[in-house]
């Protein structure tokens, strides 16, 4: 069984008549770094809320089909139980931070789980250092910049050490170097600790190099699902308009000009530069 699985999942918010996601069936394996993308309003955020039980427990509405995480049926588990398995980082960090200090915010989830004081201190410091905000630990969330708040939101989820972290545009307020640092932190957690990562992002240029599975949604449905190099170079992805990363587009343009760069689709500028280097040497 896959770590995260949805079967024919359809969900309609209480005040809506149309479902926000429809007939979504995906399987995510343990240790994968998955990117969920698609046009604005396609249902990405709604799908994320289904992974930790915010849907249907908090948002109510009508859910059909099934979501399982780590063998647990999400609809039958209380949210606090799911929180041990799935950490969710929201788009807007202001919705997530509320304590008097960043340190307390990061410790909050652990306090609720009844973790010992010593263990708590250890995990909080670990998460604060990983996200580069250890020096800010005594500051109040509202004293922090948008980018620092985003780091704090990520730290508070990391401290829980969940099997799956779901991040909904976690770096949208960060400067490019800050965003890159966060993606690298997430990538390291994925590679070194085997944490499964589900990332929602529009900016494929910043993220495609890290991923090994991509799900593209449109109008509430999954339209493409599979291996990134294959999906991102497909006609389907171009037509939906997800903003194909520039190295892939340059590769495709040069291919039309009969420049032979080999058959490997480049997911990053590094890969593209290496391929061009070979072609230029000849």
């Amino acid at each position, binding site marked *: 069984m896959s770590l995260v699985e949805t079967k024919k999942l359809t969900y309609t918010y209480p005040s809506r008549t149309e479902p926000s996601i429809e007939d979504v069936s995906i399987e995510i394996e343990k240790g994968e770094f998955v990117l969920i993308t698609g046009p604005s309003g396609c249902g990405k955020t709604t799908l994320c809320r289904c992974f930790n039980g915010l849907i249907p427990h908090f948002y109510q509405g009508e859910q059909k089909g099934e979501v399982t995480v780590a063998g647990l049926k999400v609809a039958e588990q209380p949210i606090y139980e799911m929180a041990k398995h799935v950490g969710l980082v929201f788009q807007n960090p202001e919705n997530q931070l509320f304590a008097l200090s960043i340190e307390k915010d990061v410790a909050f989830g652990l306090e609720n789980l009844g973790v010992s004081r010593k263990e708590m201190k250890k995990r909080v410091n670990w998460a604060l250092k990983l996200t580069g905000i250890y020096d800010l630990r005594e500051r109040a969330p509202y004293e922090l910049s948008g*980018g*620092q708040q985003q780091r704090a939101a990520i730290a508070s989820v990391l401290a829980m050490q969940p099997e799956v972290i779901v991040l909904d545009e976690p770096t949208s307020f960060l400067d490019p170097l*800050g965003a*890159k640092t966060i993606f690298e932190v997430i990538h390291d957690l994925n590679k070194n600790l085997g944490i499964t990562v589900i990332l929602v992002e529009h900016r494929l240029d910043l993220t495609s190099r890290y991923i090994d599975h991509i799900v593209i949604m449109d109008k509430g449905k999954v339209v493409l699902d599979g291996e990134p190099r294959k999906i991102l170079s497909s006609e389907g992805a171009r037509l939906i308009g997800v903003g194909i990363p520039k190295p892939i587009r340059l590769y495709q343009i040069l291919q039309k000009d009969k*420049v032979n760069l080999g058959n490997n689709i480049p997911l990053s500028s590094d890969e593209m530069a290496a391929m061009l280097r070979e072609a230029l040497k000849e």
Partner: protein
Amino acid sequence: MIEVKDVYFTYSNGVEALKGVSLTIKNGDFIAIMGENGAGKTTLVKHFNGLLKPTRGSISIDKVDTTTVSVATLARKVGFVFQNPDHQLFSETVQEEISFALKNFGFKEETTKKRVMWALNLLDLAKYRETSPFMLSGGERKRVALASILAWKPKILILDEPTIGQDYQQKEKLLQFILQMKAQRNTIIIVTHDVEFVAECNPRVLLMRQGKIVADGEAQKVLTDPEILAQASIVPPQITQIFLKLSDFKLPKEVIDIYDAREKLLRVLEKQPD
């Protein structure tokens, strides 16, 4: 025209956010202000509509000093779209949100209606006319905030992080819209971290660091200078990154556009473009 003369600004908590900024923005300029978090970008643009007044130095909009007029008066001329739409939205429906300022400015009902429809269609929001802004997704709320400002067609438009949460197609539309505004001699100032978007628009780029402007020039020059970019925590555009890694092959390094990249590469690879 916006004239900024040696502006310093210190917040009440003692943080010195601007440390001697001088610049001139002419009518019809299209400017992207970039730089690391906390560099002073938002603080600077908040001076352009009078939300903040300089601690030292002066700011004038069309020769009028911002300390001598109210924010409400300046707002007619300078539209400001915030980074976080939730700081701006308050109405019960999208339509009400967009008509609010128009009514306040005393536009006739007929004109208000027309402008609202225009803005709704422009930003692909017509289907949400009767919906509460708070029921919409983050990207959609952002567009409502933008529509509510565009509706009164300010001469100077300031967009703080307009591409956050926007998908590729929305960004393309935003780009088209900006170019259209520019063609009509409006001034557009965007504050952004989105290097790829800036590379596509090719505006004048102001790079800020620790309350100062560290570079001011064409996007093609500024975004291809890795040393100056590193100072401002900016990563070069992907196309530029490719060219920076191929610098030993007699390729130019000032490349930000994909079609320009194609041409330069084909020349070195000795292939004739079709």
